[in-house]
């Protein structure tokens, strides 16, 4: 073959192999490389029936190893005879035209190409040697290759890249200009664009180290951690809701904060891994190390009624095992849940050995739809800790004072039978924090108890909330003791109406055996009872919204004369959101345990009822016969009687008790406001793990212990067989995958694709690395640097490879359309979050607030409601106000069953499963978001104001400024001409239609700056809208 024809041959192969999914580079010599050229063919075409999966194996033939492939078969043939293709039955079967013999069988629709047959033949001829899969062999630091242009190499990365270019006869592209370079590296390291000031400073910096200084500045910025965290959240599938069934909100944002902090502090990647996987198992774990284990709690969870716990627990553990293996090993083990892996050397047994590490988790199968299903940890701020300690001290002091006062009361029992009514009518609370004793709670959806500070609470620790589209209610019946109605008694309840979503009507209904006792406020929309009767009393307008209002009705007015007794109460509304709290009567009637002057009489009365409001320890003591009580029990009963029951003495304790109640309320409120976050913990005794036949939870087979697959280095003998042992094994320098997979993902961040394109699959079906030597060098370098994450980022962005211009000639595009050879710099559309954050930054709206709970920025109405479970805590999307509208997208609330639509349009994932690389689509929906989403229209309006105020005194200068803000570079004359032309048209339109300008200029919550002519501002808003829509503005060049 002449040199010329070889060249042609190579470029044809280059093109065809791309579509065939094979690697793109054929060695110049004829030596066949097993791993690169043969294994992919065998894996794709043969392993399904002749691979590791024993159950599927046909004809006893195994082609995934030398021994099996060269063994004599039952048929008498031998598949592979080293050096002798003509004797190798494999070759006979892949070259025959007899459909009965042909391999792969015609019905599989798989067919070897002529080139593949030729490769297999040549490989056997050369000895048919098998090698271990490349990624399962520990990487070694390779010698740096010689290259054609020594001075191009800024660091070893460039040598490996140029070595490939040299082989292909390509030259690297020139360095990108400084405008381009600062924009690129700023976007990459912070997720935000460079400002014109930053651009100018860099462009004019004559220091030879100007670029390195820039890189160092960016790596030191707090924005760096946020940017790095963005990618990590896709992997760990972070969400702000549980993800299944009700999809209620969950509290895990402290974990997100931890990740950002870890990146900013440059926590070494091995430690980063260990703390997330197993921080709870470290000796004396710090709060931070426990927060980090939220990593293990990011999986979707359910609390769907009817679920079978065992099945759900298996799913959680499978999910965690798969996620761990994808993130750290680039291995997809899902297949091995049901059977031996068909391609990768991981048996079903080995899968369940890994699964066993997670089959010890202490979290319950049902998340209870709770905000923070246990195990959890509270993470108070310093202020909160101080406040709690102060309140505790005060409480202790006040309790001591009260105890002293109690001790000083001299009480003599007047004897049973001397029961006296309370002197004056007073509020008797029948329902506080819960329904009365004995009551059965019902409603057309369950009672929803809520707490401060997220919700209004009038008294005690919680109130009830109800959201409705139509008539809706919750109620109880069967309360015991009953509420006794006396002469002149009034019934009351406290009500708080949501000003954003008021009901048409609120109604109280009382049950004395029937429900025909009703009072309502607001419109007459609830079809219970009729006319102005006790069954249907109109009490006037709806109470004022946004504050607690006491609703009160005379018992007689609703047909409840003295002597009747209530056992039930209903809280009814028509539409809206209503909170209820603190219900009872104004009465001087004896209510079960009230108003005994005789302790003996009170004790007898309390003993006679099944349930009462008396605290359980006191009741327990009362049950003991008087002469058998301990002194402590006697004191407990006596003190309770004196403080709470005796009609005269109890009045003297009320002020102190009120203080205690108030302080307790404050304490509870403070405590409730403390951030809580889900963490990982193991059961004291792990569950037993069995191989599950076909992956079914109820089909256990052989019992297995926690262990790692045999293809990898073993767990050290002294390593604990738990997540900590697993984490240490993953981060041991001998592990062949962890460092490779990690550096590959970092590479992908900068270049759009990894050196291994299938960032989630380094197994046999994954793509061969485009530059294996570079990948291995980076992996070794990463480990030997002490897993220094920032150093690795710096290494990559300092390389000449990274700094190349991304411009591409038609010829180069033809030769290397996907930029596998890296003869040019990266150019690709920004990720969803960066698109939005850039617009916020360029328009001056961006909030730089760090960390905290997730926020709810602009979102079209009805996205959550359209799919939500009625009663879910994420049924209604309530947009935030103020600064929260402009936080970085990393902080946007992620409801996993209805994720943020404007981010989804730009390929953000749902965060239900681990995602190691995002799709990068180009759709009209993206155009619609950028043109019309309120967020972007508001950004356009604000950017326009900036252009007018900061850009100079004429529209051309202002647009030049805007162009620089959006692209970092100075527009060409031609570009300015286009902008001026469009501006003239838009200005004429808005001058002729001032009302249109006014409409455009009020979009979004941010204030409209004063002193700008509306037509000018509107026309410039459309220019800013154009600039924000430029391909260049949403692309890293």
């Amino acid at each position, binding site marked *: 073959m002449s040199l010329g024809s070889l060249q042609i041959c190579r470029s044809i192969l280059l093109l065809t192999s791309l579509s065939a999914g094979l690697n793109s580079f054929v060695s110049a010599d004829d030596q066949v490389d097993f791993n690169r050229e043969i294994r992919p063919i065998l894996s794709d075409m043969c392993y399904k029936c002749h691979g590791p999966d024993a159950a599927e194996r046909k004809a006893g033939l195994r082609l995934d190893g030398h021994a099996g492939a060269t063994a004599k078969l039952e048929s008498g043939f031998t598949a592979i005879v080293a050096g002798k293709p003509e004797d190798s039955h494999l070759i006979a079967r892949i070259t025959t035209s007899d459909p009965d013999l042909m391999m792969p069988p015609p019905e599989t629709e798989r067919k070897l190409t002529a080139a593949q047959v030729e490769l297999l033949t040549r490989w056997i001829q050369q000895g048919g040697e098998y090698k271990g899969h490349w990624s399962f062999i520990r990487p070694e630091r390779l010698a740096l290759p010689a290259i054609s242009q020594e001075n191009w190499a800024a660091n070893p990365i460039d040598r490996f890249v140029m070595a490939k270019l040299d082989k292909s006869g390509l030259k690297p592209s020139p360095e990108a200009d400084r405008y381009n370079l600062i924009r690129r590296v700023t976007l990459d390291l912070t997720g935000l664009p460079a400002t014109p000031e930053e651009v100018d400073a860099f462009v004019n910096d004559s220091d030879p180290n100007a670029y390195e200084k820039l890189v160092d500045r960016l790596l030191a910025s707090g924005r760096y951690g946020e940017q790095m965290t963005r990618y990590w959240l896709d992997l760990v599938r972070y969400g702000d809701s549980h993800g299944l069934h009700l999809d209620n909100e969950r509290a895990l944002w402290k974990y997100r904060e931890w990740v950002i902090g870890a990146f900013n502090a440059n926590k070494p990647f091995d430690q980063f891994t260990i703390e997330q996987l197993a921080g709870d198992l470290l000796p004396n774990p710090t709060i931070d190390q426990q927060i980090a284990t939220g990593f293990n709690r990011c999986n979707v969870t359910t609390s769907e009624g009817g679920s079978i716990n065992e099945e759900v627990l298996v799913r959680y553990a499978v999910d965690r095992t798969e996620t761990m293996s994808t993130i750290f090993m680039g291995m997809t083990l899902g297949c091995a849940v049901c059977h031996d892996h068909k391609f990768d050397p991981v048996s079903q047994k080995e899968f369940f050995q890994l699964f066993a590490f997670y089959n010890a988790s202490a979290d319950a199968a049902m998340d209870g739809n709770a905000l923070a299903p246990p195990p959890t940890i509270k993470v108070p701020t310093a202020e909160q800790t101080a406040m709690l300690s102060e309140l505790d001290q005060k409480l202790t002091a006040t309790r001591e004072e009260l105890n002293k006062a109690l001790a000083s009361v001299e009480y003599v029992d007047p004897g049973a039978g001397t029961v006296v009514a309370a002197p004056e009518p007073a509020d008797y609370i029948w329902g506080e924090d819960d329904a009365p004793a004995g009551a059965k709670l019902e409603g057309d959806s369950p009672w929803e108890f809520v707490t401060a500070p997220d919700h209004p609470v009038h008294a005690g620790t919680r109130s009830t909330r109800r959201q409705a589209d139509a008539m809706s209610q919750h109620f109880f019946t069967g309360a015991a003791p009953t509420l006794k109605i006396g002469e002149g008694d009034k019934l009351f309840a406290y009500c708080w109406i949501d000003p954003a979503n008021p009901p048409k009507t609120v109604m109280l209904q009382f049950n004395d055996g029937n429900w025909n006792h009703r009072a309502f406020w607001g419109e007459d929309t609830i079809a219970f009872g009729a006319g102005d009767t006790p069954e249907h009393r109109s009490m006037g307008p709806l109470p004022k919204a946004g504050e607690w209002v006491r609703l009160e009705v005379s018992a007689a007015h609703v047909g409840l004369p003295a002597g009747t007794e209530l056992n039930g109460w209903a809280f009814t509304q028509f539409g809206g959101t209503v909170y209820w709290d603190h219900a009872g009567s104004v009465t001087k009637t004896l209510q079960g345990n009230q108003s005994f002057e005789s302790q003996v009489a009170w004790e007898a009365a309390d003993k006679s009822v099944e349930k009462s409001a008396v605290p359980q320890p006191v009741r327990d003591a009362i049950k003991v016969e008087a002469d058998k009580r301990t002194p402590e029990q006697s004191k407990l009963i006596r003190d309770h009687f004196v403080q709470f029951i005796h009609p005269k003495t109890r009045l003297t304790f009320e002020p102190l008790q009120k203080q205690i109640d108030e302080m307790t309320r404050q304490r509870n409120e403070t405590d409730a406001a403390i951030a809580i976050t889900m963490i990982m913990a193991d059961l004291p005794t792990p569950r037993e793990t069995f191989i599950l036949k076909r992956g079914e939870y109820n089909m256990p087979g052989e019992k297995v212990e926690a262990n790692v697959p045999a293809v990898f280095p073993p767990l050290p003998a002294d390593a604990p067989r738990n997540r900590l042992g697993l984490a240490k094994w993953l981060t041991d320098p001998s592990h062949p995958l962890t460092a490779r997979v990690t550096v590959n993902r970092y590479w992908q961040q900068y270049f759009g694709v990894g050196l291994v394109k299938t960032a989630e699959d380094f197994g046999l079906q994954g793509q061969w690395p485009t530059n294996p030597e570079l990948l291995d060098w980076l992996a070794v370098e990463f480990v030997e640097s002490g897993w220094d994450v920032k150093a690795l980022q710096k290494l990559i962005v300092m390389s000449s490879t990274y700094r190349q211009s991304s411009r591409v000639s038609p010829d180069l595009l033809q030769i290397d359309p996907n930029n596998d050879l890296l003869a040019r710099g990266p150019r690709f559309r920004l990720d969803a979050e960066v698109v939005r954050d850039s617009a916020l930054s360029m328009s001056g709206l961006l909030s730089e607030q760090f960390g905290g709970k997730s926020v709810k920025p602009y979102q079209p109405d009805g996205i959550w409601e359209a799919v939500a479970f009625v009663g879910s805590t994420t049924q209604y999307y309530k947009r935030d106000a103020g600064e929260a509208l402009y936080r970085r997208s990393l902080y946007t609330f992620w409801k996993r069953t209805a994720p943020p639509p404007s981010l989804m349009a730009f390929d953000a994932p749902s965060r239900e499963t681990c995602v190691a690389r995002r799709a990068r689509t180009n759709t009209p*929906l993206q155009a*619609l978001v950028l*043109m019309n989403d309120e967020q972007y229209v508001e950004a356009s309006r604000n950017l326009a104001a900036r252009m007018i105020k900061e850009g100079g005194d004429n529209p051309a200068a202002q647009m030049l400024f805007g162009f620089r803000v959006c692209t970092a570079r100075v527009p060409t004359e031609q570009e300015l001409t286009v902008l001026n032309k469009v501006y003239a048209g838009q200005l004429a339109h808005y001058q002729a239609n001032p009302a249109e300008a006014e409409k455009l200029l009020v979009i979004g919550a941010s204030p409209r700056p004063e002193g700008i002519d509306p037509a000018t501002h509107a026309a410039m808003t459309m220019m800013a809208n154009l600039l924000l829509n430029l391909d260049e503005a949403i692309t890293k060049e």
Partner: protein
Amino acid sequence: MHPFAQHALQQTRRYFFGQSAAGIGTAALASVLNPNLLSANTPVRTSFGELPSLHHSPSAKRVIWLFMADAPSQLDLYDYKPKLADFFDKDLPESVRNGQRITTMTSGQTRLPCAPSIFKFAQHGEHRAWVSELLPNIASIVNDICIVKTMNTEAINHDPAITYIQTGSQLPGRPSMGSWVSYGLGSPNKDLPAFVVLHSRIPGGAQTQALFSRLWGSGFMSTRHAGVALRSSGDPVLYLSNPSGVDPATRRRMLDGLAELNTDRLNTVGDPEIASRISQYEMAFRMQTSVPDLTDISDEPQSVLDMYGPEVKEPGTFAYNCLLARRMAERGVPFTQVFLRGWDHHGGLPNAIRGMAPACDRPSAALVKDLKQRGMLDDTLVIWGGEFGRTVYSQGTLTKENYGRDHHPRNFTMWMAGGGIKGGQVYGETDDFSYNVVDKPVHIHDLNATILHLLGVNHEQLTYRFQGRDFRLTDVHGTVVRDILRA
């Protein structure tokens, strides 16, 4: 045009909702929303998606799935069990339950008392198919539909079950059926999505389960294959409308300038992705008129509106959505799913189902009739059904007038019409308790395999390589149910 830009435009092959795009200013795109796309005698077509061509001649060109979310009771609608009358309030015989797992909502009940349906059934059509009195309109189309009584699944709870039937897996992460169709087949209409989802207003405040965007999500495939939910209020497609104060001419001026600048940039940097972006903006602009044309039903004659019932005029109702589904079918949208929630009748079933059935019955039947009268039923597959069935035993208290039914995965009823389905038959048989399949089971994987088959696709050969594995909608299962196909 700059020669380089011209070149790049020709080279680039990008998609809007899975469709190949043409360059700026060309008239190459099929005319928007042209009902004539559907001339009856189209020959076997090549695919518009990733499949180079169909595996066999398709009998259906498009699918409309009326998805009855929350699982309607087969016992009260289709699966007539006269012998159950004798078992009122008697325990389900252990020989019938046979140790099968039941949900923890009823596994704690001391009894599993049988609850015969209180609704009357009558026979309809040439094949004397039993249909409940709750569905008089659907009863009138039995000659066009195939009722499958032996659908079954393994999942016993809503979330996993609905995820399973929609994506082939009980766990999140796989592409939904419509995404597979979008990926494999694409769409003949370049200005509408290949996969459209419609959510129906929940009738009469019924309690319902949640839905999840994963049910129409694209899983590990490109998000351009995800179902696009058309909304009944606000913009039908998110962000479709220009902001107030921006009229079409103003938008056009902005887009003209944008195209000029993007073209300049394309010529400078040479990235064909820019050419693609330019055409996406043009399509977005066209959508701003084509989508409102689709959702504006004012051109429908009264006679057609009457078929769907009075609610058809209210956007968001199931009736309106059924009509919209037909309008989409006319425009070539290959996969439309209309979700109707509200069938989760654990308690108080008789009253609750009386509320649901009318909202569902007339529009469902009208859709089939309407397609038929236009000659479109032959190549449009209509599917009616949900994620599982409901139990014969009562959940909660059983009285002569009242009962509830728990989840039942072992058999449930769906029906299909058109698109190559042999109408006028009832397929499969269940036992006297509608508890077990007796004859001809149809697993949800079989259903999905059959749907793909009708579209001209071998379900085993529509694959997507992800994480080293060739994934299928039907996982490693599924058999085409040939008995229900038209000869």
